Every structure is written in structure tokens, then in C-alpha cells.
């Protein structure tokens, strides 16, 4: 699975499209979770902080916390996920969860590149 080169990644398996402030989870994350049945996201207007939990994603078998890759304010939430959370399974990199207005636009650049994330995942799966 190719990880989009324009995104940045975290070791908690989130991605951010810094240009649009869109945040989601990676294809590796969705495959380890299994069928996603429930996503718990913050309200528009809430603040998120880099490294802190901003919501959770649930599969049939488990709950996983979502960690914000950046600090900022939530400006939009993907309403589709309330009724069709399985979209994350079928297209993890194309399904955003929240849109964040970054407090510091440069913060995203400190995250992992697609290549570094791919290397990280390869190590995890050994």
C-alpha cells in the first residue's frame, strides 16, 4: 500500500494533509483494527493538542484512541462517519475524520514523511 507522499504521518498511525488540515488514520491502522463500526469525534470548535487523544475509533473487537498529530482547532468533522464508518476500512487515506486549523502551520513538517512511516510500519510488523 502506497502512503500518499503529500501527507505526514505519526507513529500512532494517523496521517495529516497539512494543506487542508485533514486528519485520518492510515491503511495499516485500519487493517489491524478490523471492521470499523464506530467513530467518536470532537465537536467543531474544540481544540486539539499534538500527541493528545481527540477521539476514538472502534472495531468489532476493540477500541482505539485517536491522537492528534498537530495542535489547533477543529473546523469541520466528517459527518459521514456517523453512519458509514466502514469507509475508513475501504479507503483509509481518502477518508478524513476532522479538519484542523493548525496553530502552527509548520508543525506538520516535523512529522514522519511517507517513506519514514513506511519504514516504521515494516519494523512494527516484524
Amino acid at each position: 500500500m502506497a502512503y500518499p507522499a503529500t501527507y505526514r504521518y505519526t507513529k500512532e498511525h494517523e496521517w495529516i494533509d497539512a494543506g487542508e488540515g485533514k486528519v485520518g488514520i492510515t491503511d495499516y491502522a485500519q487493517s489491524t483494527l478490523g471492521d470499523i463500526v464506530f467513530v467518536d469525534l470532537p465537536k467543531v470548535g474544540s481544540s486539539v493538542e499534538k500527541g493528545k487523544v481527540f477521539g476514538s475509533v472502534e472495531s468489532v473487537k476493540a477500541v482505539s484512541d485517536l491522537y492528534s498529530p498537530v495542535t489547533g482547532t477543529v473546523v469541520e468533522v466528517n459527518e459521514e462517519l456517523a453512519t458509514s464508518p466502514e469507509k475508513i476500512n475501504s479507503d483509509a487515506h481518502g477518508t478524513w475524520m476532522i479538519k484542523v486549523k493548525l496553530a502552527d502551520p509548520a508543525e506538520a513538517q516535523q512529522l514522519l514523511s511517507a517513506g519514514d512511516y513506511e519504514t516504521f510500519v515494516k519494523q512494527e510488523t516484524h
Partner: protein
Amino acid sequence: MVDFGGWDMPVEYSGITAEHMAVRTAVGLFDVSHMGDIQFRGPGSLAAIQVISMNDASRLAVGQAQYSAMLYPQGTFVDDILVHKFSDNDYLLVINAGTREKDYQWIRSQVGSYAGVHISDYSDHYTQLAIQGPRAQDTLAKLTRTDLSAIKNYWFTWGTVCGLPNTLIARTGYTGEDGFEIYIPSDEATSERAWSEIMDAGKEFGLLPCGLGARNTLRLEAAMALYGHEISEEINLFEAGLERFSKLGKSDFLGAQALLRVKESGGPKRKLVGLEMIERGIARDGYKVLSLEGKPIGYVTSGSPSPYLKKNIALAYVPVDQIAPGTELAVEVRGNPVKAKVVPTPFYRRAKKTQA
């Protein structure tokens, strides 16, 4: 793969939902060899079993099995078991993997020195495979000449399966669907061959191999107990609602005296109920159950999304005055109360086949 009672087992092969639906609509295959097998042989077998097993094994015919449990003297659970009568002098108890050692030691300590009975642990000798679903019989029928339609629910026989003679074929299972469990020699070559043959035979019916994840969601929909959750050393027979599988009041067995005293003093204070989430949220194992006012009143023993019913369901212990279906409660889901209601169990019951 995860550690389940000391065994390395898959949570899923292709996905819990797909596997679950395969069992409900077609057929699924489970490797359940982790289960334990204790054989009782000799003329004293029945007497010994009647002491440690709460159900009435004297009601079994040859070729019949029954769900039961072993209880401690205080009326709480050692384990739940399936008792199979091979003959008047020969019984097989199938027990849980996680409690295998404990169960065997318990049996030996309670009835091991009884006259005329030899008790042995056969667990490592059997590979046990479960074929479950509406097409289970069609699948297995391709691999045996035994007339499977003649085996009634909770009965068993022996036949040649996958070329293996004297295979125990039981119409039992842990899914709430029709299905079979077969017991074959446990060597790797035999086990792998049988697995492959069943996979091939089931292909035309849509057979999927199924892991622990689907095993759990299936048994939860059928409201079947899981040791360590609905039943345990801290839970008594009445609380778990399993009295109908005991001979309480008819004959004595380990735990009966304590249970009769519980009955005399007003019965259990809490009981196991089914819950269905009304608001958005999934109740999971161990979550607190709250009254609508926010007071903690119980806990969830098992909870999960239900792939077939497309609802979020749970089994939970609540005070006896809260058990009526329709009662509204809440489950604390990561700090927030989410509304749920008590519903009758099982959550799912398979359609009965109409007699031809």
C-alpha cells in the same frame, strides 16, 4: 494471533463480520482443539459425574450430550462443560481450555478416588473442529457416509470422516446455528489434512475459516456463557440464570446445598440480563452499568457490536429489581453514560426448520 488460555489462536482470518455472517448464512469452520477432554471409564463413572456435574447425567441416553457445569461447594462455577454418554461405563466431558488444568485437578480431588472409575485427560489426543451454519450438514456430508440428518441436536455418533475411522461426530456447537463438532487424532498431518478437506468441501457453500473474534460475537448473539465473563468462581448458578441445566431440588451434587440455602434466603441479589444500546455507543466487557440517575449498579460481562442484528448488545449483571425487559439503564462508555435497555435473551435465535 493471540494467546487464548495458553493457545496461539487467530482472532480472525478474513474479518470478524464476514466470518460471523458466513456462519449465520452459510458455513464456518473453527479450530477448537484448545478445548479439553476428560474421559471417565468404568462402572463408577456415572456416580462420579453426578457429584461434580450439576446436570442430571442419568437422563442421558447412549449417544446423547448435555450442557452442564461443575460448581464449587458455595454454588459458584468451576467451569461449564458438555457431558457426552458413550456408554453406561464411558463418558466424555468437554471443558474449556483456560480452565483445563484447574478442572482436571478439581475432578481428581473430588472424585478421583471413587470406586470403579478411571479418569483421564485426553485433551492432547484430540483435534476438535467445529463446522457451523445452515450449510454445515451439506459440507460435512461430502466427507462422510454417516447419515448426518439422523443425528439430532445435542446427540452424537461415530463414523468415518475424511477417511478417519471412529471419528466422534457431535451435533453441538457454540454459535447458535446448526452444526457439528468432530474429534479426530491430534497429529499435525491428520489435522491439516482434515482442515483442508473441510475447507475444500465447504467452498461451494461459501465456507470461511473463523477465528476467536467471530466465535465471540456468535456466542454473544446466542447469549451463551463464556467462562470468566458470565460465569466464574464469584458467580452462582441463580445469578447466571442456568438453573434449568441442573438437577437442583431433585438430587444432590457439589454446590447444591449452598444453592438451596441461597434460594431459602430470598434468591440472588443480581441476575444476568441482555442489554441493547439505545444511544450511540458500544458497551464492552467490564464497563459499569448505571441507573439513569448515574448510580453504578452493575457491570457488563460481555459486550460488542452484533454483526447480524446490527445493534450494540451486551450481557450484564444488574440488581434483581432491574431485570424486567424494557427497563432503561445506562452503560458508562469511556466516562459517559450511554442509554441502554434490558432485552430478552437470546438476542438471536435461528429459525426452526419445518419438519418435512
